């Protein structure tokens, strides 16, 4: 069984980030987009942790906690917004929320 090197972690992080960003760009359901954003954050977390382990530095690992905290706060606010929007529009299709167009 080959050794799991840093490359694998980075590759997984890139794949996750790619899936997440494609999800953000291609999907219309606000919940799905939210989940995709979470996925991108976590791919970044994975990269942080991988590099921290690789470089023997704890800074990256500490930063992950901050990211998780911010992501949790974001989810709380974001889901509240989605609920509020759903109550008025009866829809969470992101393309229906285009009132701020120029």
């Amino acid at each position, binding site marked *: 069984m080959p050794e799991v090197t840093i490359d694998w972690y980075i590759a997984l992080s890139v794949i996750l980030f790619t899936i997440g960003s494609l999800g953000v760009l291609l999907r219309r359901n606000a919940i799905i987009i939210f989940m995709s954003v979470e996925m991108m954050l976590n791919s970044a977390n994975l990269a942080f942790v991988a590099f921290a382990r690789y470089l023997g530095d704890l800074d990256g690992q500490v930063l992950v906690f901050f990211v998780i905290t911010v992501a949790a706060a974001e989810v709380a606010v974001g889901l509240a917004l989605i609920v509020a929007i759903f109550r008025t529009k009866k829809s969470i299709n992101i393309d229906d929320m*285009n*009132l701020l167009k120029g």
Partner: protein
Amino acid sequence: MNAYGLAPLLLLFPAVGVLFNGLFGRRFVEADAKVGERWSGWFASLMAISSFVVAVLLFFTLQTNEFHPVVVPIMDWISIPAADFYVPWAIRVDTLSVTMMLVVTGVGSLIHIYAIGYMHGDPNFSRFFTYFSLFIFFMLILVSGSTYLVLFVGWEGVGLCSFLLISFWFDRKNAAGKAMNADAGRKAFIVNRVGDFGMVLAMFLMAWTFRSLEFDTVFETAVEMFKTNHIVQFGLFSAPISVVITAITALFLLGATGKSAQIPLYVWLPDAMAGPTPVSALIHAATMVTSGIYLIVRSNVLFEIARESGPVIFGVISTPDLVALIGASTGLLAGLIAFTQFDIKKVLAYSTVSQLGFMIAAAGMGAYVAAMFHLVAHAFFKALLFLGSGSVIHGMEHGHHHLLHDHSHAEDHEAVFDPQDMRTMGGLRHRMPVTFWTYLIGALALSGIPPLAGFWSKDEILAHANEHAQVVYVVLALAAVCTAFYMGRQLHLTFFGAPRHAAAEHAQESSRLMTVPLIALAALAAVGGLLNLPFLTTRMAEANHHHPAGVFVGLESWLEHSIAAFELTEAGTIHLPHTPIVLSPVVAGISTLLALVALGGAFYIYRNKPETAADPDPLQRIKPLWWFRILPLETFYMKFVVPPFKWLADWLAFAVDWNFWHDFVHNNIIRDMFVSFATFLADVFDKFGVDGTVNGIGSLTKGLAGAIRRTQTGFARTYALGVFLGAVALLVYFLWVLY
């Protein structure tokens, strides 16, 4: 005795007089007419007398200092070190200037006192004395200046005073409603401008040629240049010194014809009689009008050089000869015109022009001392005659005034009464005895009856003319005959016969203030000949040569110290002693005889005519004589000089100044240019430039915003794509561009 240092006081006293009367005189007179007039008039007189005292002190100082001329500096006036040109203001004390100072202040003082009486009751009493003091001030500057420029300051100053005093009663109008007095003042001023133009040009020439305007320097340089046949450079062209000096002297002559009322510029003097009579006596007879003669006598060196230069003017005549000719012909012409005048003062005015002609002629012939002698003697008797005529006018006015209040004579007086018209006079010798006797002395002195002053002075001129210029002698002798005749006519019309007007019957002798100066001047006119008596001078001149410090023995030896008689030779200038005057019995006899005959003839012709004021003059039968009454030169000027001048002035005023300058240049060129420029600024620059920039920025912003607006779709995914692409771009940048 040395009183040279007192010389500035000479000018200070009249200046104080001007300030006193100018600043406070009116207040004094308005507060209390009687006391005020006394203060105003006597203060001015006192200042004139003080100047006279200073002049007398200078006279004695000159005697004790061997007649040594001294220049007393007052201040540096003009100094241009770069051009080495300096004009100091200094008083020149020499025998010539002191002679003039004595005449100006002496006769001036007497006339001041007379004027207190004459101007009594005039609402502008103090203004009169302000001008009078100002006149004395400027006249003293004229005669005391040590440079031509200072002389010119006085020259212009007395011209100003002349103008102010001729038009003293500027609000008086004649029957036709014309302000004759103001017109006469303007005329005098304008005619004198022509002469002054000559003076100014002469000074430019002198300043350029001699680099100085100081008498001594100019004369010395002129002699030096003449000896070396100097060529004067005028930039592009050059001229020999003889031509330049001839030009200078000819321009002086022009100045003198203006100020001293000679042909062709004498026309102002008769009109100047519109001024108060003391003015006519002081300014237009005794002093100011003689400044032309003073100028020529002062510049005698230049005139003698011009004589040496020969006939330079058009190759025909030299300046001194021209001077003599102009003087002599003026003497005769004015004498003839005087025949036809009815105004008592106009006769005297033409007589003055005529006598000035004598002086100018004498100066032109080189008889400078004779000219000065006649100047002094003339100042005495002509001032006397004018003051006498003033007294007569006062008497006539008094008589007329008396009539107006006496209704029994109401039918006698006309609407306009001219107190100066000799036809309304007659028989005044009984009514005004003092005036009559003094007037008689003056008239006889003017006519040249021995032993009065006029005889000696006129005879000296005639004797000189007889010896050196026969033509001038004949003309002057004729002029002398005219003089005697018109004085006889005037005497008879005024004082003899029966009164021809009720006003003359009630005429009254003038006050003591007026008769005392008359008596004093009559005494001077009677004994004035002593100043230069031929016998006396011959004897005393010899004595004087042994005692250079000497005393005054006669104008000839006195003026010798400022009028240099010299001869120009190869070796240099040789100063010659003046030849003492010798009485020529033949010349004196002829002129006395002619004068007596003319006087007698006048008395005979006018013995019982005209009988009434309306009667024609007996001379009116001689028609050609009355052509002179229409004033040949005056008519010529009014016909041929004034209209073109007026046309030119009109053309300049209306065509050039108004139509071209204001309408065309101002309206069309300047205004229109401005307007079109402003229009350009408003319609083009502002509209398209300024507004265009501002609006352009606005619409650009708007358009840009409209374009950019389209990127804001409102779809979150579009923004997300943007962020994504941006991140990719950054990634590419970091990976490929930076590494």
